[in-house]
Structures are given as C-alpha cells and as structure tokens.
C-alpha cells in the first residue's frame, strides 16, 4: 500500500465552521412555515390505567389542529422493535403511545398538534385523562418479590431474561481459592444528557405516499428501518435525515415513540409536524442508562494470582425494551484485562416502572469495570498486597494475546502492563506511597486509585451479530465519487454528532486518493442517496467506515491510474496518486493532475478502451473482528475524614486506541468521555421516589451535570499499538474514557481512608456517601 499522508495528522475539523458561526443546522433550526407543533401529554404516574381521554375542549381551541390518542396509535402501528434483543428475551409490547395502561412516568398518552408550541401546551391542559393509578415497582429487588406488581403479561415475574455464562470450573476454583472477597454494588441510573434534546420533523407527501422524517439521531438508516416497520410502510417510502446533531452519546439510537407520533400526525393533517423535546420531557422520555446491582465474588491464591470471578447481577431495564436493547458487554467484559479462565456470571434483566433503559457511552463496560476494579482493590487489601502489584501479576502479557476471555471475546493486541506502568509513573507512584505515610501522620488523607480496562470497540462481523439476535449488521458503507474538478465526495449514512467523522473520513479518503482532506466533501446522515448504513455507535464507525473508504477509494484510485496511464501513455502499474497529481513513481516529472483525470472520466474521453465513464464507487466493509483498546486510569484524591468532602486532585489516563487517524480528535473524544465518566462517578443520578414512583430530579436544576469548575484538568498519555485485525490498525476510541473513572476514583477514596477501613459500594461517590461509609467503618470498629 502507498503511504498514507493524512493518517495521524491533527487536521483541523471540517465540522467546526458551522457551529462556530451559529450557522449549524440542528433539528430545531429547520424552519417549516406551515408546520404544526406537537406537545405530548405524558403519564404523570409510574403505572396507571387510562380509563378515558376527553379532548373536546382542546379541539375547540383556536390554533389546535389535531389530537392523537393511544387507541389510534395501537390500531395503526406495530410495536417498537428491538434492534439487539438479548437472546431469549420475553417481549415487552411498546407502542408509540400508551393505550390502556401506561407503565412509566413520562410515557406518551396523548398528543396535540397546534400552530405553535405555546398553543399546543395550552391545549394539552384542556385534555382530561381519567387515570386509575396502579401499584408500581421502582427497584429491581421490589420487582422480583413474590406478589410484586406485574408490568407485562408477557413477562411473568418481571424478569425479561435470565442467562448464565460459565467458563472453566468456577465452583472448584472458588472452593480452592485461598482468599475470596465479595461485594454488592449499586450502579446509579444516569442520562447521557446531550445539550441538544431529541426532536423530529415529519412531512407526508400525499401524492407519493412517502414520509420524510428529520431527526436528531445517530442512526438514520436504523431509525428508518424501525420506523417503516412500525408504520407498516416499505423502507423505500421513508426517508430519514439527520441534520447536525447536538450530542448523542448512545441515547439517540433507533426509533422513539415520538417519531411514530409525529409521523401519524403528519399523515393525518397533511402538514409538516415538528416536535422538539423539552428538558422536562427529556428526563422522562429519553433513554436512561447504567442502573444495575451486582453481587460479585473474586477468588485468588495466597500469592495473589486471580483465580475466579462470580457475579450475580440484575439490570434495571425500566418499563420496556428500548429501541436498542439491554447492554450485552457487561458480561462480556467482566473479566477485564486479567488472566482469568474460570467464571460464573449470572444475569437477570428486570422490569421496573421507570423510563426504558438505552445505550450510553461505554454501555455495559463502565458498569463491569466499576464492580470488578473496586473489588480487585479489596482483594489486594485482603491479601496485604499493593493494588499495583496485584494488577502487575494478573494483567495479560502482550505475548498472551490474542486471548479469548471467559465470555468468548478475543482481545487482539496491546501491552496492558505498559499502560499501567506509564500511568503510575505519571503520578510518581513509589514516591507517592512514601509521601502518603507522612501526610497521614499530619492527619491528611490523600489516596491514589487505579483502574485498568480493556475496551470492546466495533462489532466482530455481521454474522456474529446475527448469531446473537441483532437486527443490524456490523458493516459501514460509503459511496465515493470524484467530481470533474478533481474533488471527492463521500456519501455516508453516518450522521454528525460531534465525533469528527467528517474530518476523519476525509483524511482516510484523501490519503488514499492523493488529495487534501479539504478536497473531500462529506454528505452525511440522509438515508436517501447513501448506501445502507448502521450508524455511529459502539465505537465502530471509524473501524468499519475506514474499511469501506479503503475499498471504494481503492477502486477509484485504480481507475484513475488506468485513465492517467492512458493519458500519459504509461503502464498504470508504474503510477501513483499523490498531492493532487498522478505521476510515475520513478519519474515524478511525468504526471497528470487528478483534476484532468477526473474531467476525462466525466466527459467520457480520453479513456482507455472499454473503460466506462465516471469515477464512482460504493463499498461496504464488514469488519471480521472487534478491536480491543485498553488503558489505565490513576486518580488522586484528598478526603476530609470528618466531613467526607474530597477533592479530585489528579486524573491521569493512559490509553491505547491503535492507530490514531487524528490525534487531536482522539484527545477530544477521550476528554469528553472522561468528563462523562467522572460525572456519573461523582455527580449524576436519576433519583426515583420508591413510594410515589416518581422521578425526583428530572430537571437540569436538580440533575447535577458538572460544570467546568467541577472537573480537574485531565492528564493524558497515549500508546499506539495498531490492531492486527482492523483497517489501518484502527481501534474505536469514543467510549473508553467513561469506563474506568468510577472505579479509579472509588479506589482512590478507599485508599485515602484505608486507615479507617472504608469500603464504598455505590455510585455516585459523594461527600455524604463517604461520610456514611466512614460512619459504617467506625461502627464496625
């Protein structure tokens, strides 16, 4: 392969100009002069029978055009499909609007379309819904109790699915282990909380019976597939367009009830319909994430060799399967970067009367890392070992890779211990331990905590996904076309939500075609005119997208070389494309510009005999394997042992995401993920009142998203081990930063308070939770 000049370059982003000038086009920036605006009435109760809806007074209001109720939605649509159901799951019938029974506070019950949002909200107040509140369940433990309220007749006992992963001889190992530690951990329910909420615009064309839907989505094609199914339409008759997306983080995957509602209202009224989610709706409608309870056991030899892992965990799915499905990676990544052959992992996915769970950056991986790494530290303490030494002993070595973990995932490459050592050296670990003793004598409680992770990025082939029941593939696709001026254009179904794909895709294409990234235009996010696409999630876009670009660009480059060879009268094999020209490798003075070659392809001459006009290729790439990033976080905290208050003084992350297409963007992705990791570890939690079943803090006022003043400066180091199994050695990078935060900080606090024997087992870690843990430790003596 020719060398790739733009791979590894910190090219400034193509995407930046629009939002910097305020000329970005986000969903609500798409103005529709004739549009109707939707307001959605939502169930105020966690669980209620809807006995009657009377919209008479609302329909009499001037400016009100239509009212939609659940009865109509159920009659005219199919329930929302699950893109990646857990194999064997019992279905939870989830329509675009509740009919008969609503199962979470916030479930759509009625919609009003009016000339503007203000009027629509006025009308909503005039609709009388006769509710009969039903008994509800808020915690997974309550949901499993005999006699608990049942959410769905299809799901007896509220357990959607129960499954086990076993490897080796876990029972024997547990019996043999010289030391075992157990812990029960509660992981908080959080929200990805992009600054732009969700939104949708629908247009119905009566003449062609086709629907156009603009949505703030990560997955235009998957949304189209699900929406068409729900509306009983053919995909071809549905077009989905994602404009600029103001942050997504996993919760903008697939179809949501509001998409279906807006489509039906557009069909009924023959008018464009706009729905912009407000923040109060967001916290009661957009996917929640992470909540789980784990009972984890680890066993080791006397010398500190990790022998076995056992987990019994419950995932709180909320009231329905969301459009994507529950996290699969919790089980798959529980073993982490350690040499572990024996495990027994038992999972139950449980229903509660809460907002359906969905994906969130690090889906499943942040959860399993937290429980494992916190318990690893406890195990090290029990053994009287330094937590760094314990990890050194058990981390997989480069020569042991590829390594198939207890759940069947195959780690491809990396030097896990090197990441750990680098992170430890950044904090000055050995010196720190000495200074820590001095500080303790002075009454200061400073601690360092570490957390090591391996990160599953990309999907290992469509066939693998198919075997696990997914209704989408692992591939990504592009159409690449040269224009007569010699510029390239990429059409991709991936939308732009901050991840930098427009720039990195251009860098890969430019490198392969001998162009400057500025000469590669990106058309994205429109299901019409782009090949079938899966979308931007699961840290898969760059891996799969680069593969598709490589194939398409290869075809175009070969054709350009043939045309250039014809023009220059040189064998194409002797030519190369670079810096805007095609030239002889051995004599660069013999050259023709790419512009001229493109023009020839456009005009149809001069072309070699039997060569078709045009320079255009569509390619799909289905990655054969996943690639595994890895890294270590080291956090340093100082804790006030009286009040529980603490300061996060340092946050060091060393990570390896393989080949970096654009180091500037990689660093930005890591920063953002780290901030979200810290946010979920220290600040954020969606709190439900167990008795009333209501969300207590569903506003930005009470959901504590951190500000610039709440986060430290992050210290980042990179390793770069190209993956042997992906195009250009790329590994995904968007999610890694979230994974190790909670454990590293928890371990740092426990380390600081080790003289008191403090153990923390719930998130978020707050001054109050530390104070409680201190009190518990003191009570234990």
């Amino acid at each position, binding site marked *: 392969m020719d060398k790739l000049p733009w791979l590894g370059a910190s090219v400034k982003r193509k995407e930046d100009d629009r939002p910097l000038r305020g000329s970005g086009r986000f969903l609500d920036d798409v103005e529709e002069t004739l549009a109707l605006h939707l307001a959605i009435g939502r169930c105020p109760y966690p669980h209620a029978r809807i006995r009657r809806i009377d919209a008479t007074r609302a329909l009499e209001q001037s400016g009100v055009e239509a009212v939609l109720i659940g009865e109509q939605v159920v009659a005219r649509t199919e329930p929302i499909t699950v893109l990646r159901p857990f194999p064997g799951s019992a279905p939870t019938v989830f329509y675009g609007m509740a009919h008969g029974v609503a199962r979470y506070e916030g479930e759509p019950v009625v919609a009003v379309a009016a000339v503007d949002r*203000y009027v629509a909200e006025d009308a909503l107040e005039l609709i009388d819904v006769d509710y009969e509140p039903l008994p509800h369940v808020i915690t997974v433990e309550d949901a499993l109790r005999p006699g608990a309220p049942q959410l769905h007749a299809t799901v007896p006992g509220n357990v959607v699915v129960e499954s086990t992963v076993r490897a080796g001889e876990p029972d024997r190992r547990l019996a043999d282990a010289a030391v075992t530690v157990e812990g029960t951990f509660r992981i908080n329910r959080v929200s990805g909380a992009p600054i732009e909420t969700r939104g949708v615009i629908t247009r119905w064309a009566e003449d062609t019976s086709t629907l156009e839907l603009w949505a703030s989505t990560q997955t235009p094609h998957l949304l189209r597939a699900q929406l068409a199914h729900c509306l009983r339409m053919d995909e071809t008759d549905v077009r989905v367009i994602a404009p600029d997306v103001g942050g997504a983080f996993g919760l903008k995957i697939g179809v949501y009830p509001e998409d279906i509602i807006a489509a039906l209202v557009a069909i009924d009224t023959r008018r464009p319909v706009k729905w912009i989610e407000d923040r109060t709706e967001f916290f009661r409608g957009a996917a929640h994430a992470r909540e789980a309870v784990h009972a984890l056991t680890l066993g080791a030899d006397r010398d500190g060799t990790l022998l076995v892992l056992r987990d019994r965990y419950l995932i709180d799915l909320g009231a329905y399967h969301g459009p994507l499905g529950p996290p699969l990676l919790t089980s798959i990544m529980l073993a982490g970067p350690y040499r572990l052959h024996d495990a027994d992992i038992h999972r139950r996915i449980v229903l509660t009367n809460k907002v359906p769970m969905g994906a969130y950056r690090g889906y499943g991986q942040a959860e399993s890392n937290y429980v494992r790494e916190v318990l690893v530290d406890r195990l090290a303490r029990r053994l009287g070992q330094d937590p760094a030494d314990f990890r050194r002993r058990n981390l997989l070595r480069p020569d042991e890779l590829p390594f198939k973990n207890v759940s069947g995932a195959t780690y491809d490459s990396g030097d896990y211990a090197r990441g750990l050592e680098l992170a430890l050296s950044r904090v000055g670990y050995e010196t720190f331990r000495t200074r820590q003793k001095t500080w303790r004598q002075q009454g200061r409680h400073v601690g360092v905590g570490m957390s090591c992770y391996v990160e599953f990025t990309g999907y290992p082939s469509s066939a693998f996904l198919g075997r696990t029941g997914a209704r989408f593939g692992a591939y990504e696709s592009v159409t690449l076309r040269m224009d007569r001026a010699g510029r390239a254009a990429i059409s991709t179904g991936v939308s732009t939500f901050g991840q930098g794909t427009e720039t990195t895709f251009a860098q890969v294409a430019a490198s392969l075609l001998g162009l400057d990234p500025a000469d590669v235009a990106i058309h994205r996010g429109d299901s019409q005119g782009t090949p079938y696409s899966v979308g931007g999630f699961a840290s898969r876009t760059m891996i799969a997208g680069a593969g598709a670009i490589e194939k398409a660009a290869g075809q175009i480059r070969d054709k350009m070389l043939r045309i250039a060879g014809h023009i220059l009268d040189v064998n194409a094999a002797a030519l190369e494309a670079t810096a805007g020209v095609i030239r002889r490798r051995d004599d660069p003075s013999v050259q023709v510009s790419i512009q001229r070659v493109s023009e020839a392809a456009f005009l149809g001459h001069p072309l070699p005999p039997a060569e078709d006009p045009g320079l255009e290729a569509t390619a799909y790439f289905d990655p054969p394997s996943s690639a595994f990033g890895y890294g270590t976080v080291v956090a340093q905290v100082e804790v006030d042992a*009286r009040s529980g208050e603490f300061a996060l003084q340092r946050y060091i992350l060393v990570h390896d995401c393989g080949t970096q297409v654009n180091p500037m963007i990689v660093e930005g992705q890591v920063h953002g993920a780290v901030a979200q990791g810290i946010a979920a570890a220290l600040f954020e939690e969606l709190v439900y009142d167990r008795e009333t079943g209501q969300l207590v803090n569903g506003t930005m006022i009470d959901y504590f998203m951190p500000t610039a003043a709440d986060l430290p400066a992050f210290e980042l180091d990179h390793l770069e081990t190209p993956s042997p199994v992906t195009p250009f050695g790329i590994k995904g990078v968007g999610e890694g930063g979230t994974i190790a935060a909670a454990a590293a900080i928890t371990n740092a606090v426990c380390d600081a308070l080790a003289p008191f024997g403090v153990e923390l087992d719930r998130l978020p870690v707050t001054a*109050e939770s530390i*104070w409680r843990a201190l009190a518990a430790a003191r009570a234990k003596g």
Partner: protein
Amino acid sequence: MKPAPLEYLAAATAEEALAALARFDGNARLLAGGQSLVPLLSMRLLRPTAVIDINGIPGLDRIVAGDGVVHVGALARYSALEASAVIRERVPLLAKAVPFVGDRQIRNRGTLGGALCHADPAGEMPLCAVTLGARLHIVDRAGRRALDPEAFFQGPYTTALEPTEMLEAVEFPDGAGTEAVVVEHARRHGDFAVVSVAATGLPTPDGSWRWIRIGLGAVAGRARYARRASEGLAGTRLQPADIEAAAARCLEEAEPASDVRASAEYRRHLVPILVERALGELARRRR
C-alpha cells in the same frame, strides 16, 4: 415548557407598578431579574394574569451609604453588588456571598430584591439579610413599612409580602471595618447550598471580636440567624474552644430536611463543621 398566556406591563415608576398590582387584585407578579420567576412561568408552576416589569424604574437599584446604614435598592443586580466599592467596604458579607450565587449570567440579571422575595431557604441573599439583621423596606399604595428578616421570611418560599406590596430597598448596617466569611457545601459549583454558613464580626485592637453574627442557610425552612452562638462569641478572641462551643450551639438551630441534594442527617453533620471552618477563617482574618 412554555409560559401560559399572560399580560406584560413595563412600569416606569413605583407608583405605576403598585397601581398595576392593585388592579390585578393579587394575580400579578413583579418581574425583576426574573432568574427564578421566568423558569417557574415556563414550567407553568406560576401563572399570573400579568407580569409587571420593574426593571425600568429609575433609582430602584441605588446603592448608597449614610447614617450608619447601607441602602441597597431592591433592583440592584448581583453584578452591581460585586462591582460596588461601597458593598465591598461596608457590607463585606454580601460581597463574599455573591460569588456563590448561580453563575455569571445569573448574576448579570438577578437582583437582591428578587432573591429575597423568592425566599429560597438555601439562598445566599436571605442568609445575608438574616445574618446582618437587615431592614426590609416595603411599599404599597397605602404607604410604607419595614420588617426585620425574621418577620419577612415566613418559611420556604414564603414571605410576609402581600400580593399588592413591593420590596423597595434593603438597609444593611454599615459594616465598615468588619470581616466576613461565607462557607458552603454544594453538590456542584454554583448549585444551591447543601449547607451554608455566613460569619461576620468586627475585630478590635485588643484582639477580641465584637458584633459577631453567624447565619445558617439550607438547614431550616428559612435562613437562620444563630443568635445564641453569636452572642456567646461577643468579646472572645475566637479561640478554638470558643469556636467549638459556637458550632455546637449552631447545631441547635438546625432543623434540616432531606432532599435530592443531601439527607437531613448529613446536613446536621455538616453544620458544626462548616461553622468551625467559617469562624476559623474569620479568626485568621484579624489584621
């Protein structure tokens, strides 16, 4: 969410505002900085028939010192308090408290009077008013009255203000030469306090302190002046034992509730800690 229908009136004078309040018969709201009022309108938790914008009333934001008091007009914005040399020198507690309020944008719009009328139990402005023993000057069409903070604040988000009355100004005692400290524990920067403590006093040349006053925020339905603790410190040198005793007394004032920010128990735990921290800091300020 969007506000429900309402009428808007921009009052050019206090008389106009008061006349409008009377005309709407208790169903109108005064709009000052709007930083608490507008979100409540948007969430449709408040739906007055009208809002009466008092931002255009001249002189309502005056800050002047004289006759042993500092007069601060109800419309004085946080940013004006931050920038005011009079406040810095003569009501240093207020100057110390303002940076804890919200964020830059909020401080550019929010007003002292608005915050007092909102009467948030965790608010910094009620805390200052209570701690300093401010006088709140109230006006309606019939005349004027002045209230002490204890009489003005009646409970969470509840004041003695009648629907036809307007808070016109606040008088703080001239605190030239006093030192002041505000200490807070919050869940994130700029967030409502879990517990806040205000402490102020006048250091004397002999090393003792006079006019010590301690206030507690977010530990009851309204901000509390810790009278017993404060009086106990008069004339002391704020030695560690004095401070500890005062902290213990402050705890007696606390009747906190649990909410999403913290439990009542944790608030109680924090009270003496933050009081000690505030008084310790105050002691170190002695010139």
